[in-house]
């Protein structure tokens, strides 16, 4: 590996990603020779060497900032431009991009927010970012053929107890402490959102065709979907529902119809 080239690239990386800018980054570089940056990057009467590196530093930050704004529109709406800008500055120090696609840049943002002072201003902000990230992930997750609405009719009665349902691989069930689904929808629809209150809730995020949907789950439905994901049989699921609902047969029939119509079930 070419040593000179590696040293040059490492230096430029440090300067471009220096949190307080190229000038402060340069001040921290002890190993630069007498000529400083000018001995490495050519400056001229129009732009100094430092100003030229600064162009790259700005492009680095703003390209990622723009990508994160696109992926987290509700988080941005709650925090406002300046706070979001500051959030991303800190986030990139802790989680600099490592993957070839910008798609991955926001994958740690919710986790980062869980320990961030901005939670004092908006205690639901980490949950909000988690839902927005799930929407992005579900949008481009693996495809699977949906179960046809009449597919269940072809199952012989004797086969029902052992039958196992399968969720679309793109579906995610999030366990959140705040009811943030409505806030995401409000921002999508460009309307004001209601104040949020803390309440443990499970949110289903799934894709039907190429559109992503999300909705809060009642406790029984959440438990049932979790059981499906774990691979429990239809008989086990019915037993589970029977102790939670007064009319389990009717409830399961309703749910099956809804899941099929929503495209949530995958072909077995």
């Amino acid at each position: 590996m070419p040593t000179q080239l590696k040293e040059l690239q490492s230096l430029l990386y440090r300067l471009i990603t220096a949190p307080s800018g190229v000038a402060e980054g340069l001040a921290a570089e002890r190993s630069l020779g007498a000529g400083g940056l000018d001995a490495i990057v050519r400056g001229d009467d129009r732009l100094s060497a430092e100003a030229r590196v600064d162009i790259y530093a700005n492009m680095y930050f703003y390209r990622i900032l723009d990508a994160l704004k696109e992926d987290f529109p509700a988080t941005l709406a709650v925090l406002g431009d300046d706070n979001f800008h500051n959030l991303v500055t800190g986030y990139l120090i802790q989680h600099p991009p490592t993957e070839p696609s910008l798609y991955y840049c926001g994958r740690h943002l919710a986790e980062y927010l869980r320990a961030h002072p901005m939670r004092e201003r908006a205690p639901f902000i980490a949950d909000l970012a988690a839902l927005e990230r799930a929407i992005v992930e579900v949008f481009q997750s693996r495809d699977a053929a949906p179960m046809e609405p009449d597919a269940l009719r072809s199952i012989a009665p004797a086969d029902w107890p052992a039958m196992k349902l399968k969720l679309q691989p793109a579906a995610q069930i999030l366990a959140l402490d705040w009811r943030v689904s409505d806030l995401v929808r409000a921002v999508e629809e460009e309307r004001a959102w209601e104040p949020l209150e803390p309440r443990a809730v499970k949110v289903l995020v799934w894709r039907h065709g190429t559109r992503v949907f999300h909705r809060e789950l009642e406790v029984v439905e959440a438990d049932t979907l979790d059981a499906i994901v774990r691979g429990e049989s239809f008989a086990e699921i019915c037993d589970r529902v029977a102790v939670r609902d007064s009319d389990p047969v009717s409830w399961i029939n309703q749910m099956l119809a809804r899941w099929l119509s929503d495209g949530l079930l995958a072909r077995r």
Partner: protein
Amino acid sequence: MKRSDFPMLGYGVGLRRQHYGHVLEARPKVDWFEVVSENFMVAGGRAIEVLEGVRANYPIAMHGVSMSIGSTDPLNREYLLQLSDLARRFQPAWISDHLCWTGVGGHNLHDLLPLPYTEEAIGHVAARIRQVQETLERPILIENVSSYMAFADSTMNEWEFISAIADEADCGILLDINNIYVSAFNHRFDANEYIDALPAERVVQYHLAGHSDHGTHLLDTHDHPVRDEVWALYERAARRFGAVSALVEWDDHIPEFAELAAIADRAREIFDANAAERTAKPALSADHRA
């Protein structure tokens, strides 16, 4: 590797999300599409469905932004295998990426950074292009980038650098006409000299795009129409290189599709108008028009 190893696709447009619906439903009259490879290196969903629909009706080329061919990090094998899978599935006319580095130390800057024009860099990059071509089992094209910094260690100019790498790696060149103009302004070199010096048989594709003027420098923002000065350079290239597939890139403040198609048409008209003056023999034939 020579240009005639590749099809002449004609005059195309970069496929962007804002136009997915229009391209799939209206099937606009345009010769071909270039797709950004990374946008489709995903497991499933809308992107893959769109690409299947587009590919059913048009030839495509795959254009990447993250190969980081000039980095001193090891080549990203996982990335290359994903790229190879995508190419196997969608059969592009060719695969291209940029003559640059995008990160180091396992980190990605998501930007196209220039290299010093040195013998050391030529050897390093050419060896890596050869590895990539072995993995992908095809020659690739490398694109000249717009740059805002140049290095004191450089011992040659940019066109000598890209020509030497293309020769040593035996790969093609994706010549971004706007990038030549932008870099020529930023580093005060003669853009005409650049075009006149390149090995004609290696130029397989052009990019045409707009830039923004910041007074002290030009930025390759792909958010404006192609400037007259860039059209003049394209005309010079068209006269010198003959039939080369051309592609309109527009990435920000994206206009209606018709405006992009009109730019592609203008590129065709300029090529046709200069047919008599070309110094290189055109390779365009009915067979080549996919």
